[in-house]
Structures are given as C-alpha cells and as structure tokens.
C-alpha cells in the first residue's frame, strides 16, 4: 500500500515536470516571435532608413525607471516563490501584490510614453522605423500586461486552491514567464532605446 502511494506520487511529479517542460518550450517559441520582431526592427532601422529618428523624442531616464521597475518586480516575484516553498502563503500574496504594482507602474510609464510620442508626432503609421518600434515594444508591453492579469489570478488562486502541488506548479509557470519578459526587456532597452539614443 505504502509503495503504491509513493509510485502514484512519483508519477504525478513526473507529469508535472513534463508540463513545466512544455511551458518552457512555449517560452522558447515566444523567443522566436521576439527574434522576428527584433530582426524587423533592426532591418527597418539600418542607417539611411527613411523617417525621423526616435532619439529626437526619447527620454532615457523614463526608460531607466522602467528597467528598474521590471527588474525589482522580477526580484519580488522570486521572493514570493521563496516564501511559497516555506508554505507562508500570506507572504506569497503580499510579494505577488508588490510584483503586480511594480509591473503595473512599468506598463503605465510605457503607455504614457507611447501617448507622448504620438502627440509629439512619432506615430506608428509615420514610417517603417516607427511601426517596427511600436510593434516590438508594444508586443513586449502586451506580454507584460498578460503577466499582470496572471499575477492577479494567481493571488486569487492562493485564496481558493488548497492543492499546494498545483499552486507550486502554476507559480513555476508564472515565474518562468515573468523572468522571460525581464530578459527580453534587456534586449529591448539595449537595441531599441540605448542604440537609438546614441
């Protein structure tokens, strides 16, 4: 009887590992999506491309603040995971809420930046440069917004779900996704903003 229970548990854990690996593969395919957008952005921004330059409209200190918001949000999410593995669920929810607020500030600054750019005349329909900029940065922002919604759902699930194993698995998915977005942002701020501002 005892060995049966252990066998079932191991089987369950194996399935979970496969599920997480599947999510990891989804993240890898998302990398390909972003690679295509980066390639488009670089091609449309090769020297001599028509249209005004982003750097005339850019405020780098906003981008720096965005970068730190996302980095700290990622860090507080890691703290939530740490508390999850010590079974302190109230703390997990608190850190998740902080991650959410930091991520929401990131999206807020990004949207205000887009509105500011459009008002100044750097609209998405202006040139290939502008289109590729809004598509690349906008796709990342959309991913972050989905991640924010997911964090909210996770906080609610922590109230409702009693199955700790399921919570840990779902937190692992969300953690991979949230961390992945921070990694993509490294390349966004380097290739789009920093190179664009030189």
């Amino acid at each position: 009887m005892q060995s049966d229970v252990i066998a079932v548990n191991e089987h369950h854990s194996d399935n979970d590992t496969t599920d997480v690996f599947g999510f990891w593969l989804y993240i890898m395919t998302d990398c390909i999506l972003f690679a295509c957008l980066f390639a488009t952005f670089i091609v449309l921004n090769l020297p001599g491309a028509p249209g005004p330059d982003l750097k005339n409209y850019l405020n780098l200190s906003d981008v720096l603040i965005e970068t730190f918001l996302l980095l700290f949000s990622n860090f507080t999410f890691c703290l939530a995971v740490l508390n999850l593995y010590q079974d302190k669920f109230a703390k997990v929810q608190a850190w998740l809420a902080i991650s959410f607020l930091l991520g929401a500030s990131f999206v807020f600054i990004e949207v205000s930046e887009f509105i500011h750019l459009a008002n100044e005349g750097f609209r998405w329909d202006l040139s290939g440069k502008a289109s590729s900029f809004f598509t690349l940065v906008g796709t990342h922002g959309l991913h972050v917004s989905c991640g924010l919604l997911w964090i909210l759902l996770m906080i609610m699930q922590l109230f409702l779900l009693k199955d700790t194993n399921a919570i840990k698995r779902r937190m692992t998915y969300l953690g991979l996704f949230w961390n992945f977005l921070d990694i993509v942002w490294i390349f966004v701020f380097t290739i789009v903003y920093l190179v664009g501002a030189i």
Partner: protein
Amino acid sequence: MHHHEISQPDYGTGKKKLGIYVVGLICCSILTLIAFGMVMANMFPRWAVFTVIYSAACMQFLVQLFCFLRLNTQTKQGKINVMSILFTGVILLFIVAGSLWIMWNLNYNMM
C-alpha cells in the same frame, strides 16, 4: 540558512536560495547603470559605447539565466532545459543574422 534550502521537486529550475537572487539583483542593477551611464554621459566615442552596452546586455542576460531562471545541468531536466535553450539560440541566430544578411545584400544589389 541551510534549512531554508528546498528539497522538493524543482522542475529542473534549480534550488531556491535568497542569496543568489540578491546577487542577481545587484549584478543586474550595476550592469544596467553602466549601460545607461555610458549613453547618457554623451562623452565617449561611438565604438566604446557600442562595445560596453552590448557586453553589458550579454552579461546581464547570463546573470538572469543563472541567478533568476536558475538554469543548471545538475539534473536530467535541467540538462534538457539547457539543450532546448541552446537549440533556440541557434534558430534565433538564423532568423536575426539571416534576415540582416539578406536585407543588407538586397540593399546593396538594388542600389
């Protein structure tokens, strides 16, 4: 702090320790500040700025992989994760370098 280390299934994502996250946070902050500082200072030659910001981005990428994603080759699952990210890297290289190569040649031949 040894009793805080996790002995539960980690799905190949590595052990969860506070120390490694703090190291990751500090390294990423420093690299970000260096990259932005080089550009915002506006006093360095272009080649130097390019070299520094691209190296900082690559280093920050590696720091995130090791400290936050906790990629490792300690377990079987960890090895599979590393293999799949390497394979993705090859595909990304084809997509980005290939697109640039083709578009550059087209641009050259159409002039």
